[in-house]
């Protein structure tokens, strides 16, 4: 079965034997985008979080057939070294990662959160950022999430005023 979608702004078409193949496998093994991680494979840890049409999705539990015609963003498409997304910038500033394995998933979940709630409270963070970090970097992540909100607001003040 052929499935076509847009990923990080590029149009891609992949051939899969099983239309229920997890999107994560397609992203990592066919498209060679290794930033998105496999943790549990059961939608429990969040390491595989990416965006589909702007919504955070756990791609280990998302059949590729559902991605047909949609816009997918992975950590590689969020930003890059020259032009980091505010979340990536904040993560660097706060030196969040330890082993780093879970971090792309957290950053994608955070980016989705800031799109919905530009200035999240600690409670908003507790409710929405429920990924798992075995290195327990949660404390630094919380700081980085608040910092990312600041950076995003600084970068986009007009949107903020419109939203407030």
């Amino acid at each position, binding site marked *: 079965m052929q499935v076509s979608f847009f990923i990080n702004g590029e149009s891609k078409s992949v051939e899969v034997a099983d239309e229920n193949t997890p999107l994560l496998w397609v992203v990592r093994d066919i498209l060679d985008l290794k930033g998105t991680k496999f943790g549990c494979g059961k939608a429990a840890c969040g390491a595989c979080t990416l965006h589909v049409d702007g919504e955070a999705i756990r791609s280990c*539990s998302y059949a590729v057939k559902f991605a047909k015609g949609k816009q997918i963003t992975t950590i590689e498409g969020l930003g890059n070294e020259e032009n980091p997304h505010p979340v990536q910038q904040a993560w660097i500033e706060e030196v969040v990662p330890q082993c780093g394995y879970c971090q792309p998933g957290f950053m994608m979940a955070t980016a989705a959160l800031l799109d*919905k709630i530009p200035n999240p409270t600690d409670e908003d963070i*507790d409710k929405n950022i429920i990924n798992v970090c075995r290195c327990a970097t949660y404390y630094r992540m919380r700081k980085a999430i608040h910092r990312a909100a600041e950076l995003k607001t600084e970068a986009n003040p007009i949107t903020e005023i419109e939203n407030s």
Partner: protein
Amino acid sequence: MKKTHSYFVVSFLVVGMLFATTPYFSKNEYTTIDKVVLDSIQAKDAFNTMMKVISHDRCVNCHPSDNRPKQGDQGNQHHFDIARGGANTGFEATKCTTCHQSENNVYSGVPGAANWSLAPKTMAWQGLTNKEIAKAMLDRTKNGNRSHKDLIHHLTEDKLVLWAFNPGVNQDGVQRTKPTVSEEEYKAAVKEWFEKGAIIPEDK
């Protein structure tokens, strides 16, 4: 031989006379059950069949009395502290559909169906008796202003409701438990109960 034969004939005659004269078998003595009574008996059966599904632990998992979805056969709290959120679909960025799609996922064991969500708080069934559940279900102030016709449609056509009969495998690849009655029996029971007036049977 001849003697044996006549014994049989006599025995038949005696038994026949007994049947003919015993009042128990007299047609005049049959009790005719009033249609209203008969309907109520059948409606009660239909109600009980329908409620075996509606009050099944798996169905109640999405009708919690608090704001936390339940999971499994024991109604355990849903993992990860996920909760109802403002629209019964989880929180702003992490919602039901972050993990649950419109179909069961055979790779991860994550269940899915169209419109995956919690039932509204007014439809909290956890801890209620069958009668209380039925009462709430018929109450238009609680059921989303659904008429009987709407309720029949919801109960027999809604993909999330019917997921009960196709719950898929769990994270260990083990088939989830299904209600004790079949989908066909359940649908027929729902229709019959409503056709007969949707009467909630009194306790005897």
